[in-house]
C-alpha cells in the first residue's frame, strides 16, 4: 500500500467556513415542501400582465403556441396530445414552477424578476393550467399544497444491472 493512504487526515483544512450571508446569496432553490420560498405573494391577474410583457413572445399568447416550450396544456383534443408536456399535465410539483422561473426566466434576462413577479407568474401559469383561482393570492404557504395532476405519474428508476431491458 502506498504510504500516504495511511496518513490521510480526517480534514485537510483547505477552504473556509461559509457565512450565513454567503449561503443566503446563492441558496435560491425551492423544494417541494416549500422550503426556500421567499416572503411575499402574487396573483394570476398581475401575472397575466407580466406574462404578456415578458413571456408571451417566446411561449405564445396563451402559453401553448411557442415557439419555445409549451407551458399550458390547453386543448388536448387535437392530435399530438400525447406529446404535450406542460405544467398542468407533466409537472409533479408546483414549487418547481416558482424555482425555475426565478432562476432561469425570462431566458434573455434570467434572474431579473422580483419575487412578487415570480409569484404572480407562477399563479398565472397554474391558473392557465386550471390549477389555481385567478384571483387567489399565491404565497409560500399555499403554493406547496397545490395538487399537481402529474404527481402520481412519476416513478423512480427501476433499471438494474444485468440483461433486462427497461
Amino acid at each position, binding site marked *: 500500500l502506498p504510504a500516504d493512504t495511511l496518513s490521510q487526515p480526517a480534514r485537510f483544512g483547505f*477552504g473556509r467556513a461559509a457565512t450565513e450571508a454567503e449561503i443566503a446569496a*446563492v*441558496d435560491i*432553490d425551492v423544494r*417541494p415542501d416549500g422550503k426556500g420560498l421567499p416572503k411575499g405573494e402574487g396573483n394570476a391577474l398581475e401575472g397575466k400582465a407580466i406574462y404578456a410583457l415578458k413571456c408571451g413572445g417566446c411561449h405564445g399568447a396563451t402559453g401553448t403556441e411557442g415557439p419555445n416550450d409549451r407551458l399550458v396544456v390547453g386543448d388536448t383534443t387535437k392530435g399530438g396530445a400525447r406529446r404535450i408536456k406542460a405544467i398542468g399535465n407533466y409537472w*409533479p410539483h408546483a414549487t418547481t414552477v416558482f424555482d*425555475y422561473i426565478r432562476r432561469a426566466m425570462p431566458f434573455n434576462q434570467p434572474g431579473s424578476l422580483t419575487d412578487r413577479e415570480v409569484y404572480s407568474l407562477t399563479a398565472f401559469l397554474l391558473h392557465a393550467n386550471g390549477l389555481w383561482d385567478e384571483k387567489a393570492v399565491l404565497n409560500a404557504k399555499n403554493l406547496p399544497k397545490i395538487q399537481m395532476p402529474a404527481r402520481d405519474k412519476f416513478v*423512480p428508476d427501476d433499471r438494474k444491472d444485468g440483461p433486462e431491458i427497461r
Partner: protein
Amino acid sequence: ASIVLVQTASGKAFQAALTASELADDPTKIPGVPPGVLGTRSPFEKPVKTPSDTSSRTPLQDLHGMITPSDLHYERHHGGVPAIDPTKYELVIHGMVEKPMVFTLADLKRFPSVSRIAFLECSGNYRGSNDGKIRPQEICGLTSQSEWTGVALSTIFREAGVSPKATWFLAEGGDAAVMTRSVPVHKGWDDAIIAYAQNGEAIRPEQGYPVRLFLPGWEGNANVKWLRRIELADAPFMTREETSKYTEAVGGGKIRQFSFTMDARSIITYPSYPAKVEKGWIEIRGIAWSGRGKVSRVEVSTDAGKTWQIARLQEPVLDKAITAFRHLWHWDGTPTEIMSRTVDETGYVQPFLKQLLNARGGNMGYHFNPVTTWYLQGDGAVLFKA
C-alpha cells in the same frame, strides 16, 4: 511526394525560379514553420461539431481511438456558456453538513486529486432518419470522452462533514440557467469528482470551466457544469430538469425519474454514412460504452443480425469509458446490413429499437440506446437503416 534535384548553382535563384504550386509540391525544398507556443491543426483537416441552439455534436465518424479532442467535445447547455473569472470562482457546500464551507479554485486544487478517462453522454442522445442520410454525429454525437482530473467529491464531503442522514444533494451551476440537479449522496461517496481539468489542461468553458461535477457513467445533465453550490438534503429537490425534462414515459402512463445510469451502447463509425467503401477487406470500426462499468464484449453482425461475431476491443478497456472496437471483414459486394451491440460487465445487452419500444410502452425519449444498423449498398454507399 517526390524530390527533384534541380541543377542550379544558386540557392536563392533556385527558390525564386519555382512557382508557388511547385513549392507546395515538394516540402523537402522549403524550410518549414519553426516551433511555436501552440500547435496547430492542419488546414486540410476541419473536424467540426454541428451546433444547434442548445447543443453541438461530436463528429464521431471522423475520430480515432477513445479520446475526444477537447474542442470537439459535445456541448449541451441550457443558458449558454458563461464567462467565469477563476480568481472569483467559489464553490459553496451547505445544508446537511457539520460545517458549511466555501472553496476557491486554488483550495480545490490543493486536495488529493484523481484522474480518470470516462465518457460523458447526454441522455437525449438519439436521432433517426427516414432517408438514411445521417451520420454517427447526428445519431449519437452527444457523447465524448476525456481524461478528467479533480478532487473526489467524497473528499469534499468529509471536509464539510456531510451528515450520515443526507441522502441527496443539489448541484447548482453558475450559468444563466443556474442549472440544478438532485443527485443521490451515495454517488458522491462512490466515484463522483469535482473536476477542474480535462485532457491534461483546465476544463474548457463549454464543459464547465473552471469546475464541473463529474458523475462517471451518469447522464450528462446531472454532471452540472460551472458548479457553484452543493446543498445536502434528505430528499431530492425536484428541479425542472429532473421533472419536466430528463424523465421518460415508460408506458402505463408512468414517467421514469432519476434515471441516471447510461445504458450500454455502441455504434459502428466506419463504415457509416457518408463513407463509401470498396469490395474486399474492411475493418469495421466503432465505439462502445456502458454507464454500468466496463464493456465486456462487442458483437458485430455483417448479415443483418443473423449471426454475430466478437470484435476486438482496444486495450485498455476502462470502467465507464468509451472503448474502441474493430472487426475485420471481407465484403464480397453483396448488399447487406451491418450492426454492433455492446454487452457490458453486468450482462446488459444493447437492445434493438423494437425491444426498447416494447419495454417502454411504445415511447421514445431519453435513454434511447438502440442498435444502429447500417445498410451497405452494392455500390459501397452506406445508409442509416434503424
